[in-house]
C-alpha cells in the first residue's frame, strides 16, 4: 500500500471534494506522442500512465514515496492524529512529559506542606488560549510570590530568582518566556515596590502588578490588531507562517470587520503550528489553504502579503521567529511582496540586551541555537546529523513593517527605539 505524508492527508481531503486535478490532466500524459512530450517526471512509466486513477495524488510523488520508502505507517498515523488533535489548545509539546519530573525535582519552591511548582503553575497559565508565554511566566512568578512564606524582601527575591531560573531552564528555546521572567525580576528587584515600609504591602503590590500584566498584554494585542487590520484589503491573499496569537488576532479582527481575504498557512513542521492556525481560522469562516513548508515559493505569486509573528525583535530591527521565516521573507522579498510582522513591544528583546549588552545578530549562527527534537518518523541512520534549531533570524532589510503596540514601525524605527531605551 502506498503511504502518504501529513500534508497529503489534507490534500486528499480537499481533492475528494473537487475531483478535477492538475496532475491528472491527460494532456500531460499523451501516450500517442511520447517523444514530443516527454513525461513530466522521471519516475512515471510511460506504459503505465494512470497507475492510480481514483485519488488525485501526484503519481510522481507516489512512486517516489514507494521507491524511497521514507514515509512509514506510524508517520501517517501521527499525521492523522495531528489533524484530529489540533483542536486541543497548545498540546503536544514533546518536552512536557520529560520536564514534569524535573519540575518536581527543582521546581518546588516555598517551604511548607504543599509543594508548589512554578512549572505546573506556568503550564496552567500557558494552557489558557489567549495568554502569551511571557504573560504566563509573569503570572507563574506572581503565584510564587503569593505562595511564598518569605518574610524579607531578600528571601523573596532569592525564591523568585530560583523560580525564574527553573522556568528558564525548563524551556531555553523560548525568548518570550525568558523575557517575561527577566522583565518581572527586574521589576521586583529594582522598582519602587522596594520603597514600601511594609513587606506585605510590597508583596501585594507585586502580585497585583503581575496580574495586571496580563491585561496589558491583551490590550497590546488589541491595539496591534486594530493597526494591522488596516493593511488587509478586500480580496487579498495572506501567507502566514507559524502560529502567533497576535497574527491570529489581526486576522480575527479583519474577519469580524467583514473583510474578504484568503489565508495560506504553512504547515509549520515539526510542530505543525500551521495546522493549528488553519483550524482556528476555519472556525472563523476564513478560507484557508494549507501548504507544506516547501511550497512557499511555489505559491508566492498569488500571495499579496506575508504576515508573521515574532519570538523576539532585536536591535537591528530584524526578528527572531520560528524556523522558516527567513526563507519566506527571502522569497517574498525577491518577489516584491510586503512582509508584515506583528509583535508586542515587550518582545523587543530588552532582557537579552540587558544580559548581553546588545543582541545584534549578524548571521544565523550568532544566536544561541534553540534546539528542538524533530521527529522524522523513522530511525535516522547513525552518523547522520539533523539540524534541530527551532528558530532563525530574519534581517531587517527583508521586513516591510512591524505592527507593535507602539504603532506601525519600520525596522529602522525599531532599532532607534531600542537604542534610545538602552543607551
Amino acid at each position, binding site marked *: 500500500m502506498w503511504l502518504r505524508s501529513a500534508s497529503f492527508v489534507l490534500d486528499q481531503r480537499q481533492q475528494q471534494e473537487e475531483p478535477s486535478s492538475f496532475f491528472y490532466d491527460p494532456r500531460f500524459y499523451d501516450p500517442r506522442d511520447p517523444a514530443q512530450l516527454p513525461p513530466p517526471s522521471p519516475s512515471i512509466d510511460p506504459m503505465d500512465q494512470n497507475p492510480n486513477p481514483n485519488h488525485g495524488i501526484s503519481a510522481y510523488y507516489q512512486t517516489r514515496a514507494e521507491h524511497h520508502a521514507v514515509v512509514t505507517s506510524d508517520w501517517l498515523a501521527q499525521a492523522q492524529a495531528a489533524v484530529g488533535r489540533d483542536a486541543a489548545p497548545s498540546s503536544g509539546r514533546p518536552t512536557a512529559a520529560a520536564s514534569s519530573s524535573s519540575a518536581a525535582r527543582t521546581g518546588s519552591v516555598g517551604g511548607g506542606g504543599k509543594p508548589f511548582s512554578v512549572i505546573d503553575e506556568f503550564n496552567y497559565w500557558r494552557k489558557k488560549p489567549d495568554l502569551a508565554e511571557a504573560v504566563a511566566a509573569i503570572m507563574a512568578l506572581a503565584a510564587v510570590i503569593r505562595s511564598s512564606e518569605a518574610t524579607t524582601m531578600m528571601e523573596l527575591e532569592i525564591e523568585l530568582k530560583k523560580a525564574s531560573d527553573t522556568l528558564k531552564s525548563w524551556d531555553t528555546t523560548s525568548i518570550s518566556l525568558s523575557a517575561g521572567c527577566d*522583565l*518581572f525580576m*527586574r*521589576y521586583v528587584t*529594582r*522598582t*519602587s515596590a522596594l520603597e514600601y515600609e511594609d513587606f506585605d504591602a510590597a508583596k501585594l503590590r507585586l502580585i497585583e*502588578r503581575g496580574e*495586571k*500584566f496580563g*491585561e*496589558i498584554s491583551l*490590550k*497590546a494585542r*488589541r*491595539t496591534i490588531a*486594530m*493597526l494591522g487590520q*488596516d*493593511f488587509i*484589503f478586500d480580496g487579498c491573499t495572506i501567507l502566514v507562517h507559524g502560529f502567533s496569537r497576535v497574527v491570529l488576532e489581526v486576522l480575527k479582527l479583519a474577519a469580524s470587520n467583514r473583510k474578504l481575504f484568503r489565508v495560506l498557512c504553512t504547515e509549520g513542521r515539526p510542530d505543525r503550528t500551521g495546522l493549528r492556525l488553519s483550524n482556528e481560522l476555519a472556525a472563523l469562516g476564513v478560507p484557508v489553504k494549507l501548504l507544506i513548508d516547501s511550497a512557499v515559493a511555489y505559491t508566492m505569486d498569488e500571495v499579496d502579503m506575508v504576515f508573521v509573528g515574532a519570538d523576539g525583535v532585536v536591535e537591528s530591527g530584524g526578528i527572531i521567529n520560528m524556523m522558516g521565516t527567513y526563507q519566506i521573507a527571502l522569497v517574498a522579498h525577491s518577489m516584491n511582496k510586503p512582509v508584515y510582522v506583528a509583535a508586542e*513591544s*515587550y518582545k523587543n528583546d*530588552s532582557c537579552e540586551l540587558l544580559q548581553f549588552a546588545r543582541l545584534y545578530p549578524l548571521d544565523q549562527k550568532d544566536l544561541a541555537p534553540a534546539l528542538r527534537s524533530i521527529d522524522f518518523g523513522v530511525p535516522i541512520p547513525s552518523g547522520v546529523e539533523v539540524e534541530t534549531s527551532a528558530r532563525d533570524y530574519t534581517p531587517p532589510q527583508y521586513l516591510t*513593517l512591524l505592527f*507593535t*503596540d*507602539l*504603532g*506601525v*514601525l*519600520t525596522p*529602522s*524605527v525599531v532599532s*532607534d*527605539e531600542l537604542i*534610545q*531605551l538602552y543607551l
Partner: protein
Amino acid sequence: MPDVQALVNDFVLKLKRRKIEGSHASAQHTAELLRSVISHQRMPYTNQAGALIDAVKAVGEQLIAANPVELAVGNIVRRVLHIIREEDLSSTATAIEGLGLSAGSDDDDEGQHEDRPALSAAALAAAARSTLRAPSLQTLLEDIPDSAAAPQPPSSGGDSEGKSKSADKNIRSRKLKHDVIEAINELIQDIDTCHEQISEQAVEHIHQNEVILTLGRSRTVKEFLCAAKEKNRSFRVFVAEGAPRYQGHVLAKELVSKGIQTTVITDSAVFAMISRVNMVIVGAHAIMANGGVIAPVGINMVALAAQRHAVPFVVVAGSHKLCPLYPHNPEVLLNDLKCPSDLLDFGEFSDCMDFGSHGGSPLLHVVNPAFDYVPPKLVSLFITDTGGHNPSYMYRLIADYYSADDLVVKRRSTS
C-alpha cells in the same frame, strides 16, 4: 460662528470640485481656514485646548473627506492639532497650577472610550510609546495600569482650583488662543517660504556641468534649479514632458527664460537618456511615513530607470507634504482618476465608444490616473526645508511635526 461655517463649506466645495489643487495651494488654504476657525472659536472656562482640538477636528474631518487624495489638507489639520497640543503643554507647564487638567483629561478620555476602534488604537499606541520613552522599561509595568486603574475624574481636582484662579485662567485662555494663532501664522509662513529654504540647498547638490533629469513640472524643482543657476552653476537639464498634461513643456520654457540649458524629451525616452544623467530631481505630491512617495504619474518609471543605472533619485518637497500615514495599497487608494479629455479629444474614438453593442458597455476604456507610488527603496534622498534626509529617517521628522494622537482625525462621538 455662521461666517466660519460658510467659509468651511465654501472650501469643502472647492476641494470637492477640484477647484483647489496642488498640495501647496491646498495646504495654504487649509491653514488659513483653520486659523479663522480658531480665532472665532469661543473659549470655554475649562479645558480650552480640548475645545480647540474638537473644533479643529470637526472641520478637519470635513476637509479630509472632501478630497481624501489631497493629503496635504490632512497634514495641515494634524499640524494644527499638534500646535494646539504643544502650546497647551507649554502654557500649562508655565502655569503650574492647572497642570494635568487639560493634558491629563485628554488621556483619560481616551482611556474611557477605548473600545472605539481605530482612534483608540492610535491613541493607545501613543500612550504606550510615551511610557516607553520614559527612562526605563519598567514603566511598562508601572504606568499603564495606573492610568487604566485609576481614571481620576479630571474636573474634581481642577475645578476648585479653577474657580479660585479664574481671573488668572481667563488671561491664560486668551494667551493660549493667541499663541496658537501665532504658531499657525508661522506655519503659513513656513509653507510660503519652503521653496526658498529648499532652494538654498541647491548648490550643495548640483555641481558644475552636471546633467539633471526631471519629469513634469514642480514649482519646487523649478526654484531649486533656478537657485543653482543664480549661484552661477552651469548645468544641463533634461525635462521629460510628463504626458498627458505636458507640464514639462511649461517647465522647459521657464528654465530657458532663466538661461538654463534645457532639453525636452518624451516620457518614453527616459530610459534611453538616463545613462547620461548625473542626478534625477523630482517633486512630489506627498511623502508617506515609510518614506514612500506619491508623485505625478510617470515618476515611478523614472525612479526605476534611475535605480537601474545607479543614478541618485532626489525628491524635493516642503514639509507640508509629509504625511504621517502608512500607505496601504497606495496605487489604488491614494490615486485620483482624472478626466480622459487629457488623453484624447472629444469624439476622437467615438466609433469605439458604441454603447449599443456588448451589453451597454464600450470595448474601449480610457483611464487617466494622476499619481504614482514610488517605494522608499528607490529614493536616494529627500530634500525638505529642514535639510536632506534618508527615506528611513522620515518617521523621525513625522514624530517632530505630528503628535501620534492625531493620526486619525475623527471626533469622538461622545464629545
